[in-house]
């Protein structure tokens, strides 16, 4: 139960997009492999040098006094169970923009949904949104085409 809450928090902060989720999975797998190693390749050294600082901090806090292996397995499962909301947009969003979109998704759709952002300048603005196999086009390109068609 505790692990579940902790893993959700880690995922919410470090796996907001598909790219972040893939990176986090790779880091978790690196840490998993280090569990059975000793010396400079052990878990603590790998946590310090083999993953990003923010990952190291979040996982370091989470494994204190707990079962490292169980937490990593649960964390990986949590990441792998994410549902993705596809966002085809015209610009490269900075971290702040990603945060804004992710917050909106969490507040309006719920936990366990990450963003799958694809940059496509031809949409001009707005977004083409895909969720659970359904696609809706709210791009400026579509508005322009509709305007000139009508």
């Amino acid at each position, binding site marked *: 139960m505790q692990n579940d809450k902790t893993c959700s928090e880690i995922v919410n902060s470090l796996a907001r997009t598909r790219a972040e989720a893939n990176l986090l999975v790779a880091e978790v797998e690196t840490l998993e492999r280090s569990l059975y190693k000793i010396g400079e390749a052990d878990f603590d050294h790998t946590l310090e040098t083999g993953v990003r600082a923010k990952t190291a901090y979040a996982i370091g806090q989470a494994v204190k006094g707990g079962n490292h292996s169980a937490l990593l397995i649960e964390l990986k499962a949590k990441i792998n169970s994410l549902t993705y909301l596809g966002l085809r947009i*015209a*610009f490269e969003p900075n971290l702040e923009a990603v945060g804004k*979109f992710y917050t909106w998704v969490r507040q309006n759709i719920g936990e366990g949904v990450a963003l799958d952002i694809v940059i496509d300048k031809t949409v*001009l603005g707005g977004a083409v*949104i895909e969720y659970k196999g359904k696609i809706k086009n709210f791009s400026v390109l579509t508005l322009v085409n509709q305007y000139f068609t009508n």
Partner: protein
Amino acid sequence: MKNPNIELKRARKRGRAIVEEAKIKALSIIVQAYGEEIQKIAAEIAVEFKNEALLEVSRFKEELEKRVLVTEDAAERVLDAEFDEVKKEVQSYKQAKISQIDSQAKEVLIDVTKKVLGKSIDLRAHEDLVIKSLEDAKRQNLF
């Protein structure tokens, strides 16, 4: 002594001359007796021929006029049909050209609009547009 053959020939010759003379006299008598009547009949026949000829000419003219009218009508119909066909082709060509120009103008406008929008939307506006898209998607029950 006279030759009987020669005498016979002379007799025949005289006979023929007498017959010819008789014929001429008879004709002269007939002409004198019936000349006016013959002239009258000949004149009547001439008038009759003339009338028949005039009637025939009149019929021919009438028939000719009818045929000319029919031919004129047919020619007019053919010309009208051809004119309509050409008119349709011109209209169709005109429509195609207008559509082509319309389409090209639209493409230019879309292209210009895209270029202008692509450059004029700043980061903040992009973010707002994405959030608006998410809200529209929610309103349309995508989630």
